[in-house]
């Protein structure tokens, strides 16, 4: 299922793009998403383990379904303030 992922901060810089489309299995979880990102965007590998995943406006848990969503985002730990 086509899934659109937005990238921010260092993830965007390393990937060289602010948005990326992946084809994920219907049962894909955030762990599958990370693995697929690492495969398709190898530049992300150094920070893959630290990437947070958001679906909609909420942080995803490891079991949150992500496939087919248009509102998935990945980014490293936040540092506002």
């Amino acid at each position, binding site marked *: 299922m086509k899934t659109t992922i937005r990238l921010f*901060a260092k993830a965007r810089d390393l990937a060289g793009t602010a948005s990326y489309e992946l084809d994920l299995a219907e049962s894909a979880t955030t762990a599958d998403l990370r693995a697929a990102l690492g495969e398709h965007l190898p530049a992300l590998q150094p920070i893959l383990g630290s990437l947070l995943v958001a679906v909609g*406006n909420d*942080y995803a848990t490891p079991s949150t379904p992500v496939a087919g969503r248009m509102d998935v985002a990945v980014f490293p*730990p936040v540092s*506002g303030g």
Partner: protein
Amino acid sequence: MIQLTHQPIDFAALTESVRSNQAGAVVLFLGTVREMTHGWQTVALDYDAYPEMAQAKLNEIETEARTRWPVIECGIAHRLGHLELGDVSVAVAVSCPHRHQAFDAGRFLIDQLKEVVPIWKKENWSDGSTEWVHPGTEVNPKVQNPMSKE
């Protein structure tokens, strides 16, 4: 009032906006761009955000603060884009009937903001290099300098 803005934060107006005859205490927190971090010199910071989610998370932490303290008014503003030394990056203003409530609510709001709101800063160091600040990630030799710990 919650605001993400590329313009300088008018923290006087923000403070005024939370004043109330029901409040005996108004607390304002300002985050400002600091020059030195572990001996490294910052010349500027660039802030980026995931705006939709940042807005939603700021709303959530305001709601949470209101369940914990008798908050009368609350204003949070975070600046985005390029900031110079001394610029105000974030302002949190909160009013409560009593001062300890206002201090506690204000501290909770800024601590939660730094923990969960998807905003990031990038250091522009004086040696010309730049570096995203991503706490807990280990490709950050300057910020992780073991010579000084805070």
